[in-house]
């Protein structure tokens, strides 16, 4: 059609780095979620907008190839991950959704691993997968 207009040189070179930066930033926001304002939602939203930027700059098929998985499968995996985070407490024989914390110290610094963090990651995957799927589905619907 008439408007191959979005792959100007500057945007196409700039978009991948920007996307990578936003994905990094979203992971940062996610991991920081438990102590600072952040969390799975916002991380997912930022990652989704990163993919939207990538989708806008060099087409949807590139994003699908970039994302190895089908976005909605990512959402499903996120849902499964967060449900399983809840079920982890089955083995500890405590009620559903109990926070199981583990503070292993790997290589000197002790990091906090926990099932709420796993839950957050599930939420992150869900929001990313779903909104990316929506944005991509809408964009590639454009051209007919």
């Amino acid at each position: 059609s008439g408007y191959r207009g979005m792959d100007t040189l500057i945007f196409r070179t700039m978009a991948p780095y920007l996307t990578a930066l936003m994905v990094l930033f979203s992971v940062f926001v996610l991991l920081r979620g438990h102590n600072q304002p952040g969390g799975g939602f916002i991380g997912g939203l930022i990652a989704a907008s990163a993919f939207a930027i990538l989708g806008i700059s060099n087409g949807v098929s590139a994003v699908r190839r970039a994302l190895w998985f089908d976005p909605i499968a990512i959402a499903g995996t996120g849902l499964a991950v967060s449900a399983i985070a809840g079920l982890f407490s089955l083995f500890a024989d405590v009620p559903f959704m109990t926070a199981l914390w583990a503070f292993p110290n790997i290589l000197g610094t002790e990091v906090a691993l926990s099932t709420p963090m796993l839950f957050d990651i599930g939420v992150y995957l869900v929001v990313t997968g779903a909104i990316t799927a929506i944005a991509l589905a809408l964009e590639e619907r454009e051209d007919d």
Partner: protein
Amino acid sequence: MEGFMAIIVGIFFTVAIYLMLSQYIIRILLGVAILGNAVNLLLFIAGRVTREIPPIIGKGADVLPASAANPLPQALILTAIVISFSFFAFLLVLAYRAYQTLKTDDTHQMRLAEPEDAPPPPLGY
């Protein structure tokens, strides 16, 4: 202070409902978006907004400072935001698909589900 914001919320609701009463689907959708915002603000006020220090426990202490905003309605609002956003996205796409198949978007023509010449049932036995 809440009183003032409650009026803002009232205005939000009025505009939202006004938009939803129009006969074009898109304006109904805009009404839905604004309704989402209105409900979020309403929930925000339901938690009595007084202080404006974010509910983040400082590094030293381990309880919230006394004047922290209360976090529960924020959690509810966050959930409501994403839910109303996802509904909005869904309705938007639905309106878009309905428009594609029905070629119009005002509610006078879209009565395929209930055609106005539905025949009465057979009167015999």
